[in-house]
């Protein structure tokens, strides 16, 4: 892979890429990679309320990082910082840095729309547009300037295939996306996201509103995608985190309590609170 400095020669921030802690977590467990994204000393405030406290977390490339924790602990807040969705929240304030390939995504030169093309997001509730299936997937490439009809059709087909939805919808591309089942809608949202060709995928409880069969399909899909993309998934389903993720971070009341390889976190949590949470003693 090309180094960041070559990709963004003009975008080098005054401090340069932050590499001091690259490849290691707050606990010092190395991942062996320079992180694709990382948060450094992040505090986030909704008005006076501090929702995130001194969060430092790396997303290693081409791995799935699960974020678990009881509801209200700041999981969504955190993941939405990674593609600057919280820019839309009035009176919110961020301290600290969030880096993509070593560059601060909140630096003035970084355009939020451009960032979101590289860092896609799938939401808790499937949210297809009230348009046709084709238009839904074509929307992202279109707003990003892809006009050529054939290329667009190809992009739509590829994205639907990668989201394991093509066979189910190939004969009804011109029908409303709202006619799909909830699970299909969520896979459509994933396809729509893939169509923009992002590098990072963020999932915020993507299965929260789905039945077990649809959930299994989404999990399978995430396992399929994980070697091509850097993925972060918020879930409050511990089995899901165990099944799909390489690394797990446990959030509690806006803080990271523990982060490490998923197997280790579930088998041998080091913090009492992590253990209490994964054994179902609270939350």
């Amino acid at each position: 892979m090309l180094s960041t400095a070559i990709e963004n020669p003009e975008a080098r921030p005054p401090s340069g890429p932050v590499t001091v802690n690259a490849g290691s977590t707050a606990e010092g467990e190395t991942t062996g990679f320079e992180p694709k994204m990382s948060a450094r000393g992040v505090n986030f405030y909704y008005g006076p309320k501090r929702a995130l406290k001194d969060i430092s977390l790396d997303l290693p490339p081409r791995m799935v990082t699960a974020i678990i924790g009881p509801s209200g602990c700041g999981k969504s807040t955190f993941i939405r910082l990674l593609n600057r969705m919280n820019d839309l929240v009035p009176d919110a304030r961020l301290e600290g840095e969030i880096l993509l390939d070593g560059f601060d995504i909140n630096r003035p030169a970084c355009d939020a729309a451009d960032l979101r093309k590289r860092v896609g997001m799938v939401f808790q509730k499937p949210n297809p547009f009230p348009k046709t299936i084709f238009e839904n997937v074509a929307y992202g490439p279109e707003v990003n300037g892809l006009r050529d009809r054939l290329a667009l059709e190809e992009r739509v087909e590829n994205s639907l295939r990668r989201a394991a939805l093509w066979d189910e919808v190939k004969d009804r591309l011109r029908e409303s996306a709202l006619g799909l089942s909830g699970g299909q809608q969520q896979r459509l949202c994933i396809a729509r996201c893939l169509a923009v060709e992002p590098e990072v995928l963020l999932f915020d409880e993507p299965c929260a509103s789905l039945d077990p069969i649809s959930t299994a399909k989404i999990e399978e899909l995430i396992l399929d995608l994980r070697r091509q993309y850097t993925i972060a998934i918020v879930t409050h389903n511990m089995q899901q985190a165990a099944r799909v993720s390489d690394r797990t971070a446990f959030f509690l009341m806006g803080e990271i309590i523990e982060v490490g390889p998923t197997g280790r976190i579930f088998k041998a949590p080091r913090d009492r609170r992590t253990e209490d949470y994964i054994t179902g003693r609270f939350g």
Partner: protein
Amino acid sequence: MNTTKEKLIKLLFAAAAFSSLALLAGIIIVLFREALPVFSFVSPLAFLGGESWYPTAEPPEFGVWPLIAASAWVTGIALVICVPLGVGSALYLHELAGPRQRAALKPVIEVLASIPSIIYGFFGMTVMAPFMQEAFGLPIGLCALTAGVILGVMATPTVASIAEDALGYVPRSFREASFALGANRWETLVKVIVPAAGSGISTAVILGMSRAIGETMTVLMVAGGAAVVPSSVFDPVRPMTAAIAAEMGEAAVGGEHYHALFAIALALFLVTFVFNIAAELISRRYRLKLGLAR
């Protein structure tokens, strides 16, 4: 004991609810009964298509085309004014105005909607008409354009507030999805929000239109009153509502003129009825489309 009382109360409420139905039925019956005799002395074609409206001449002529054309012109001009103004204000209020501006502007729009039409009429007669006369060098400022502009201004708050509601129904999640795909605010507005609110906005326009076409007092005051098929927007005109209001007093009850005016009223009723049904159907389909209703 208790149940008889309950039954009685239930009956009373039912009566209240059904009385509006009865009223509607009554209005329709009277309209038809008083309107249909018109066709005993003038054929439907001569009535709707006739270009001479001389109801008190000897012999009288009952061609309502000049009145229909006047209503159409005035309503058309009103639409040209109220659609961009109303939809524009809705978009501004919903998308661009900050919370403070919105808090200030929304009540203003609602007050505009509640001003009695005679006040718009006064404004039209004393300010707008002289201005038009001056600006375009007209012999008289009371004309189709003046009436249309005033009606358009009157219908704007209706269009704005219904269109704003329609935009408000568009779920936040569509906006988030669009932003998350790298679209900017403008693309999101044009490609997602407005299409999603599209049928709601059409409903707003249709209701604004039905408001304009049924408005009486203002057109009576500012349209000029000439029952002639207009050939330019500067011609004085007499829309259907103005004709009914102005002439009903002098028409002998049960006479030909009287029945002809009722026939005009029936036509108006049918037109606004169709508009309202259309608006209702469109908005129902729209809520369905957004998954807001089953």
